[in-house]
Structure formats: C-alpha cells, structure tokens
C-alpha cells in the first residue's frame, strides 16, 4: 500500500548510484540479495528501485523516505509479493529494527525552514494581546494577502511568504494599530440612547440619528414587534431589525446595552406563516423556539468579513411568553452598530404592503393614487394592530437602550502599552515593548535602532512602536540554533499551538523561571491551557486544516440547487457540529476511534432536520443526541461538514471523496496522476451506471494502480449528496450502489461497512491524525526523520487507546515538539 507514497514512483530516480560495497551493514545486503534484488536490482529495477545501490544518507530526505518505505512494506507484508518465497519473521524484525535504530539517531527536523511568519490569524490575535487593543471589528490583518496553504495548513513555515506587497500593508496596519491604541487627553462622557424616542436631531447643521431605529412602527406602549425575516441569505441586512442607531457609535469604546425582549404567539396562525411557496424564503417552524439574534453591523460602505456587512455576536432561544432582560457590554469601533433580529421568523417578501396583504387578507388597490399613498403610510400601525389581535408569532422588544462610551481606565491600557508609564525613560518603554513584541527578554543593545528612532523626533516613540510592529522578530516566530527548544521557545510554540497567539504573562514568567523543559510540569500547563476558553482557537483552526474545510467555502454549494443550505445556515451549523464533537472528545479525553464512529453527535434544530433526525427544539445550542444503532451519522464521516468539503458544491465524485478519505482519514497521499493522460468525459446521459463509468478508468493501466485504491473508498459515501443529505438514488433515478473495498482488498458495504474496516486497524487513522497535529503544532512538515517518534505515539493511541487529551499531552512532550 505504501507504494502509493511518492517515494518509489518519483524519488527513486534521484539516486546517486554508487557501488554496493560501500554499504556497511552486510546483513541488510544479504537480506536484499535473497529476497529483493531479483526485482529491485541491477537487472529489473521495478518501480525504478535498485536496492543493491541504496546507501544511508541522513541528509537526503528522498533516500530516507525509501528506507522508511522498506520498513513499511516489510512490516505490512506487502513485500516480497505473496507468490514469492517469504523471509523469516525474525529476519524481517532484525532488519527493520536495525533501520529504525538508524532513524532514532536522527534528531530534529533536519534541513527544513522553521522560521514562521505570523499568519493572518496569529497576527490579529498577537496584536490584540500585545497592545490590549480591541481589533475584533476593524481587523488590521484584513488587507493582508491570503496565507499560502500546505496540505490545508495555513501555519507552515515554508508556505508563509513575505513580499513587498505584504510589507506595505504591514506598515499601514502598524500605523492604524498605534492610532487605535492611543487616546486624546480628555475622557469622553457617556451618552444614553433609547428606543422609541424621536430619532433625529441636529448637530453642527448635520442631521444625525443617535437613537435606535427600526423599520416597524412603535406601539403606544413604546415596544416594537419583530415579525419577519426576509434575508435573501442569512446575514444580509434585509431582515427586519432593530438597530442601535443610524450613524453608529461616535467613538471607539465599550457600550452597554439593555434589552427587554419576549417571544410571543409561537405556533399561532401556522397556516398563514407557511404560505410562502418559494423555497428561497425561510419557512416558519412552529416547533422551534423563537430565536433572537444580535449582530455587529458595519458602518455603511464597509463590509465585515467577506461579503456580509454584519457579524453574528450571539443568539438566544427565547422561552415563550416570558420577558427577559439582556444586559451586554460590547466593544464597538467608531461607526459600528448593534442590531437585533428575529432569526427564524417566516419570510413574507420585503415589502410592508405585501406583508399587510397576507396577514389582513385584504388586497391593496393597484392604483397609485393619493388615497393609496395615504393608506400605505398607515400600514405599519395597521400591521401592529393585526399582529397583536391575532397574536402572531413575534419577538417583542419592550425596551432597548445603549449607553457609552465606557473605558476600564483612562487612558485605556493600550495607551500605556505604547507610551509607557508616565515618567518612564524612553529606553525603558521601548525595551519593555520590544520584549513583549519579540516574545522573549530583550537586551537594550539589541534594540538600539528602535531607541534612536524613538529619540529622533517628538513623535518618535510611536514611530519606534510602529517599527517594532514591522520588525522581523515580531513578524516571525523564531527558533534559532539546533537541538532542544529553550524555555522561551517552548512557551511560544505551546501558545501558538493551543491559543494561536503570543504567550501570556504567566507563560513568559514560567519560561523566565526555566520551568518549561520539565515534562511533567509541561503536561500540567498544557492541561490548563486546553481547559481555557482560548483553546477554541486550536479546535477551530486545526479542524479547518485537517478536514480541509476551506473547500466548503472555495467550492461552496450551488445556491440554486441547494437553496436550503444557506437558508438554514447549514454552512455554519455543520462546522459548529464538528467543532463541538471534536471538543467533546478532547475535553472528555475519549479515544480517537470516536472520530471514526460514535453513537452520539451534536446537532441543532436545523441540522437535525437536515439529517432527518427527530426534532430537537433548540435552534441555537447544540445538543448531544444518542444515535440509533446503525445510524449513518456517527463519527466524522457522517457529518455534513466533511461530506460538503469532500464534494464540489454541485455533485459528488467517488474519486474526490475517495481521495479525501485516503488523505485525511487514512493519512496516505497518493502520487499525482501522470502527465498526458486523456481523462474520459463522464457521460451522464444514462447509458452506463455510475459504477460502470468509474470502472472505465480503472481499466486503464496508468490510472488503475492508484484509482483502484481511491474510487472504491469514495463509493461508501455516495449515499450522501454534496451537502451531506442522505439519498438512496441519484437525481437521474439510478439506484446508488455504495459497495466498495479497502486498499487491501477487503470488501465493505456502505458507510458503516467502511467505518468498521477503519476501526479494525486504527494505525493508519492515528498516524494521519498525529502527523497532522504535529504539523500544526510545529509549523513544519513531518518527514521520515520523525517517523519513529510518531509511531510511538500512534502505538499509544492504537494499542493503549490513550484518550485524545492525553495524546495532546504526549505530543507536547514528544521530542518532535520539544526540539527544533
């Protein structure tokens, strides 16, 4: 099976051949002579491999990969071929353990780049923590180019590029960050705004609207009703809403909000609610609790994130007919607003008049005359009347207020981070900032360039701070020298691994106290860090890379064909499902086999319907549910996130899904297809079954060697459509045949058959998972030099069924993590 790794196919050409006599281990050569040379020798050289000429060369990673392949082939019994005479077991063990010993002597990463530029997320988080500045909304990393991916990972040293383009952006962002961190002398006074007041006032001849605005009428008692949700796509601002002000807040700062809200009329007038036929519109599910959503709304003309102008902060399932008070303190950047919506309300089309026609049952006249204009003006209050009379489903906002800006201290801490404590020397200020920014203790003579910049001009200090924010020691994670990481480097590696940000003060103190090379202590710290909420960063980023979830965005599901995918926020929910599932296994220290199959999953109401599972009433929180025996949803492979990532947004292909399983679940990376292959047109006009179509290219010799291992795996997932919904036939009506076989030829039926086979030997799965964890943790590719240590970890996970959290502890204290 290991034939699939590139080594034999491409790398063996690279040998520098030399006489076999220079090879010292006579017994290896003896073994080769007896069992291998006939095919892999001077005469035949199958797979372009000549074992009589193979030398040990620890500096050549291609040669090392071949040695690793020899171990794998022999241990897995792939070679010599079954129809040849088989070597003695003891001989095989003698040979492989001898080679392994050689591998064990190799320390460290070998010749590889380990100098890592902070990626976008790391930069963002690091700036936040370094300056204690709130950059959630106006993210200084936004203008940076996308980070290069290596096997799905965005934190691998080699792929993180620096360019003049990027450096220009870094310079700009540094200036903005310092602007944002520093404040004028005078502390602004907080102002209070409420809902229901006349919103317009004049300030310096300009009209402003500082109070809450809404697109519905205010009732006599000062409350408003949110009744509709007409978003085209979740997150667009067409939904009916209540917004904190029209212009946004006047200054950066904390703002305190108090909302009194109540869910009313749930389940009433269901017929009326369900009248919208167009599948694009949101349906009202009377069995779900009403959901209040709170958003950050970007200043007009600015987008928050990729294409939307608002960011969901939180949502609540509201208990029926119970007024609750929500008090929140949000940081808002200048111009930003807060918005409330009824997330799972029915859609009625965007026009008030359409809505009125529907709920009143009266048609408005088509004529556009004065009488109609007058009438239309009254519609909002007429709507209110009907809504109240019929007690239609709604979220009533009894009151809303905003007060701010507030600051914890004045000037805020970030100001002091830039300018230092009052009366402090310039040298001291720069040294303190540089030590934090470089994430190590810095001597004064190392930073003379910045100190002189600071002393150069009246604005010198801020220029120096900007310069430090553009310096190589800030922008790169540095691990210099060879051998074991020093305490400070461990603190950095650990912090970026688990929290994706710079080490906090405590970690830096522990590093200064030289505590972190102690493995028992390191495990204790790791456990604590995993328990911290910041470890969500690890969960999110690791899953995203491991399971290639980027694909769900790059090749996002066809919005016409899978209209409900966006409608019911499946894209967000499915990622949340996988995160919650992963976290559960991590926090409860459960075995890794649960990633392959489990009798539980986490779903919300929308996802439960998506999966055809019984009703779950929560639309916000994810509930753990126990699956029926033989359910197809257990483990990662039944989750919509994985099934969407392994499709292409339009249809499924056993090749793509098979490859996905091979690479991400079994950890095997096949060689790329050879050049100059004419790939046949896939004829879907119904002459052949899907199985027959794919069989065609497996009959071509150059395709067959890999595809006979790829496609059959993919067929196991054919029962899921491109967005993870169960199906038993294709849209053409053709019945789905989910049978296939494992790379070793064992046949299986459908997804559960596949899972059983993976569970039977968890070595491959665990090796894949552990290698990827290590890649993420160290920011470099794993090579054959790392194999011995990885295999020890794999053994723990497989044989001892070590829990997942303990496995992370083992990884952190492994030689791979603790060395350069």
């Amino acid at each position, binding site marked *: 099976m290991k034939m699939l790794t590139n080594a034999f196919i491409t790398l063996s050409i690279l040998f520098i051949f030399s006489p076999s006599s220079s090879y010292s281990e006579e017994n290896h050569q003896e073994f080769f002579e007896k069992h291998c040379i006939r095919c892999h020798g001077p005469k035949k050289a199958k797979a372009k491999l000549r074992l009589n000429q193979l030398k040990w060369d620890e500096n050549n990673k291609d040669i090392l990969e071949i040695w690793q392949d020899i171990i794998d082939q022999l241990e897995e019994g792939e070679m010599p071929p079954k129809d040849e005479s088989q070597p003695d077991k003891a001989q095989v063990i003698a040979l492989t353990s001898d080679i392994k010993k050689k591998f064990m002597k190799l320390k460290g990463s070998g010749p590889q780049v380990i100098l890592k530029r902070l990626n976008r997320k790391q930069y963002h988080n690091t700036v936040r923590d370094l300056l204690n500045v709130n950059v959630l909304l106006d993210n200084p990393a936004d203008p940076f*180019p996308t980070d290069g991916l290596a096997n799905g990972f965005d934190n691998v040293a080699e792929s993180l590029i620096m360019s003049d*383009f990027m450096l220009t952006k870094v310079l700009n962002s540094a200036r903005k960050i310092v602007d944002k961190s520093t404040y004028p002398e005078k502390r602004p006074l907080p102002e209070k705004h409420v809902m229901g007041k006349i919103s317009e006032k004049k300030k310096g001849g300009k009209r402003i609207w500082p109070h809450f605005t809404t697109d519905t009428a205010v009732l006599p008692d000062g409350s408003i009703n949110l009744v509709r949700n007409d978003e085209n796509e979740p997150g667009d601002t067409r939904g009916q809403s209540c917004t904190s002000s029209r212009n946004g807040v006047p200054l950066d700062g904390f703002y305190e909000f108090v909302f009194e809200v109540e869910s009313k009329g749930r389940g009433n007038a269901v017929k009326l609610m369900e009248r919208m036929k167009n599948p694009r519109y949101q349906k009202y599910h009377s069995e779900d609790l009403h959901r209040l959503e709170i958003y950050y709304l970007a200043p007009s003309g600015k987008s928050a994130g990729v294409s939307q102008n608002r960011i969901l902060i939180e949502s609540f399932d509201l208990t029926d007919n119970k007024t609750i008070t929500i008090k929140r303190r949000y940081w808002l950047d200048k111009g930003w607003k807060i918005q409330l919506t009824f997330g799972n309300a029915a859609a009625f089309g965007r026009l008030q008049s359409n809505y009125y026609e529907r709920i009143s049952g009266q048609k408005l006249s088509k004529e556009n005359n004065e009488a109609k204009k007058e009438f239309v003006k009254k519609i909002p209050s007429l709507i209110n009347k009907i809504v109240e009379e019929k007690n239609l489903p709604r979220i009533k906002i009894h009151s809303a207020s905003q007060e701010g800006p507030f600051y914890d201290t004045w000037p805020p801490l970030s100001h002091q981070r830039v300018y230092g404590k009052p009366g402090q020397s310039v040298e001291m200020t720069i040294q303190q900032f540089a030590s934090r920014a470089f994430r190590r203790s810095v001597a004064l003579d190392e930073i003379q*360039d910045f100190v002189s910049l600071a002393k150069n001009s009246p604005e010198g200090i801020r*220029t120096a701070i900007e*310069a430090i924010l553009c310096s190589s020691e800030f922008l790169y994670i540095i691990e210099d*020298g060879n051998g074991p990481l020093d305490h400070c480097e461990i603190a950095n590696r650990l912090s970026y691994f688990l929290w994706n940000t710079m080490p906090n003060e405590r970690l830096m103190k522990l590093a200064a106290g030289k505590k972190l090379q102690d493995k028992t202590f390191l495990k204790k710290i790791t456990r604590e860090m995993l328990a911290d909420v910041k470890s969500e960063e690890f969960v999110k980023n690791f899953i995203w890379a491991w399971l290639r979830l980027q694909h769900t965005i790059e090749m996002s599901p*066809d*919005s016409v064909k899978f209209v409900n995918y966006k409608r019911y926020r499946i894209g967000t929910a499915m990622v949340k499902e996988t995160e919650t599932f992963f976290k559960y296994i991590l926090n409860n220290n459960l075995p890794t086999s649960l990633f392959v199959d489990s009798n539980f999953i986490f779903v919300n109401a929308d996802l439960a319907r998506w999966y055809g599972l019984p009703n779950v009433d929560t639309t916000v929180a994810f509930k753990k549910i126990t699956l029926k025996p033989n359910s197809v949803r257990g483990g990662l492979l039944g989750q919509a996130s994985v099934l969407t990532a392994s499709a292409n947004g*339009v249809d499924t292909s056993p090749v793509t899904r098979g490859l996905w399983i091979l690479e991400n679940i079994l950890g095997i990376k096949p060689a790329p297809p050879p050049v100059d292959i004419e790939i046949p047109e896939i*004829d879907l006009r119904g002459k052949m079954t899907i199985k027959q179509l794919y069989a065609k290219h497996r009959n071509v010799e150059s395709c067959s060697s890999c595809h006979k291992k790829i496609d059959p795996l993919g067929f196991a997932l054919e029962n899921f459509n491109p967005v993870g919904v169960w199906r038993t036939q294709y849209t053409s009506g053709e019945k789905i045949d989910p049978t296939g076989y494992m790379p070793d030829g064992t046949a299986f039926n459908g997804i559960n058959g596949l899972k059983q086979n993976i569970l039977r030997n968890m070595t491959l799965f665990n090796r894949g998972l552990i290698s990827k964890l290590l890649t993420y943790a160290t920011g470099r590719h794993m090579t054959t030099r790392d194999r011995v240590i990885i295999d020890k970890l794999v053994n723990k996970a497989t044989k001892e069924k070590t829990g997942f959290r303990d496995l992370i502890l083992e990884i952190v204290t492994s030689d791979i993590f603790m060395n350069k």
Partner: protein
Amino acid sequence: MNIKHNRTISRRSYLKGCGGIVVALPFLNIMTSSAADTEKKIAAEQRLAILAIPFGMVQDKFHPKETGFNYTMSDTLQHIKHIRNDFTVFSHLENDVRGGHAANHAFLSGVTMTDRNAHPEGNMTIDQGLAEKIGHHTRFPSLNFAEGTYSFTRTGVSVPAVSTPSKAFRLMFVDDSAASKESTKKSLKSSGSILDAIRENAKRLQKRLGKEDKEKLEEYFTSIRGTEKQFAMSEDWLDKPKPKLKAGDNKTKSISDGDSDNMSANVMLDAWFELMFLALQTNSTRIVTIGINNWNFDLEGVKDAYHRCSHHGLQKVYLDQLAITEKYLVTKISDFVQRLNNIQMPNGETMLKSTQVLLGSGMGSGSRHTNSNPAILLAGGRYKHGQHINAQTKQPLCSLYLTMMQHMLNDFEIERFSVSDGPLKGLEIINS
C-alpha cells in the same frame, strides 16, 4: 472621446481651465509639440486586457475543427464572427497543471501554487511579470478587478483585486484631498526611517539563524528593498493629478456612485469592462485583469447555476445553458474589441492595435475537471489575426504569454517566461 477642438492648448492649462469636465489625458488629439510627441509615444505602447473565467468553455463547441486562416467558425465563436480578423483562437496549448478547480489559479502562470518552488520565477503570472518591467511608468503597475485569484507575484503572493467598481473608480479618478496628500507624504517619510530600522534589526537576527531560515529571511530583506522602491514611486505620483473624466457620462457616474457595487453579475461585469477601458485609455495602468469566479449571470434561458451547468456530463439541459453563458462571455469580448477599434489614438492607429485582449481559463473542461486544452482567445495588438492555431500539446500556454510579453515590451530578445523557453510558433507580429 471624439472631441474636436480647433485650437491647441497645453495640457496644464487645459486641465486648469476645464476643471472637472475633462477627459482622458493621453489620447486627446489636441496637444502640441513635445506634449503631443509624448502622447504619441505613450499611444504606441502596448496594453493588456485580460478576462479570466473559472470553468473553461465546452471544448468541442469552442475549438474550431480546422486550423489556419481558413478555419470554419465553431459554435461558440460563431457569435463573434464579425470580429474574426481581429482575433486568434488557440487549441491544445500545453497546460501541464493538475487539480481541476484547484489549479485554475495557474491560468496566467502555467504553474500552481504548490509547484511554485520548482520554478525560478515561482508561479508569477504574466500581468505581474509585465508589471515588474513597465509598472513604474503608470500610476498603477497593474490593476486587478473583481476576483483576486488569478494574479501572483514572483514570491507567490496572491495580488488582491479591487472588489467593488466604485472603489476602483475612486482609486483611479478621484484625487485625494490636500490634507490627505500631506499626511501621506508624512507617513512615507516616517515609513522610510522605519524601513531603515527594521533592516538593521533583521541583520542582527540573520546571524542567529540556520541555513534554511537564513534563506527564508531573504524574502524579508527583498521585501524591504521592494517597498522602498514602491514608496519612491508613490511619492512621484502623489502630486500628479489623477485623470479627469468627462462630466455628465451616466455610465461612469453610476459606477462612481456605487450603483454597480454588489449588484447582479451582469451589472458588475459591465462596470468592470467600463473601468478596464477607462484604466487603459487614461493610461492609469497598462495591465488590467478582470477575474470572475462562480458568478451566476442573469440570462434568458439559464436557470441553473454556472458551476452546476459546467458539470454537464454531456446532458443537453446543461450544455444548452452553458452555450448561452458562453455566448454572453465571448460577446462581451467582441463588444470590448469593437469599442477599442473605434478609438482613434494620437498616432493615428486604433486603440485595438495597441491593446492585447486575452480571454481564457485555467480549466480545460469543467465537466471532467481537467486543466488541459483550455479555451484561449487573443485579440488586438499588432498580430496577424484571423487564424486558429493548434499547438498540439507541444507548445506550452506560456509560450503564448512569452510572445505577448515580447510584444508588450517590444523586446524580442526575452527568452523565457515561466515554463516556456520560446515564443509561440505561428503567431506573427506585423510591425508597421
């Protein structure tokens, strides 16, 4: 732009006098003596306009059967037969990348991001290769519109695109306020001293690093040098006024007002073509790329998404819809070509003669997810057009790019670009 004046004026007084009403600077036929000579010289320079599409075109329908000048129009090209003599169509240009959608970004470089390390120029795309050489002549070395997934620098950085038409308009045609210019100047100066300091600091770091990391840090030093160069250029441009457009043009007004931002794909594409035209015409840049992705055009007879249709599997229902979309796209190109053909330049030529227009994709077949034999069409420039060239998978796509670069730079000694080491055979440039 055919404004006729019977007196000659200097550029400066012209600008002064007309306030906001004026026009594209370089190609106005009214300047005198040396100014006019400069105009003529600029007019004669080659420009490049690219439309990059995501799923290729249905190959059987796009590629003509016969080769040479007497080929019969294919189904798709039939729609633009009226400009037959203004373009050349190519088939079987070798595009040795794999990955289907994942390799579409290699359209303009012939090299994917993952393979970039194996090539001396990385996966630098043709537009960035050209921008390196001639970018300093214009305010913008190059411009990317709409989707930023088609353009990469020598170091593998994906060059982001301007994503909304109104923003592109502001960048090109709206002058910064005096105050903002002043603050830009100030920040350029402070950036200069920052760059000095971080260079010195990085030199200290370099001494501590191992061999591989030292090499990696070179990227940082190169970036500092590049940034310094860029800043020097920005300073030069800062005080030069941006070109002014004729007031009262509804199309440009609506673009600058943001009417086409985040609108339907059709409206956006029209706006981008307009901006591409204006960018080239005002010599704001000489290199523009419009990149489109999985956009769903609002077209009569198309109900399924573009991406869905591209997975046609030979089924008629999808092929028919694709035919409509593809007709729409090639027609956009022919409209643009005709527009250029109607513009008279100061040197007496049409603007088409000095503008190469490239349409293509990094994907060959959206249905099979292959990248070989992509649909490629080149119009404009001083080529001897009107033919179909079948490269028989013997000449790489990059050979065409090399030819285009040679033409752009008027330097026929350039020996290589990306994976090509010779110009495309059979495509002739007529120097008249």
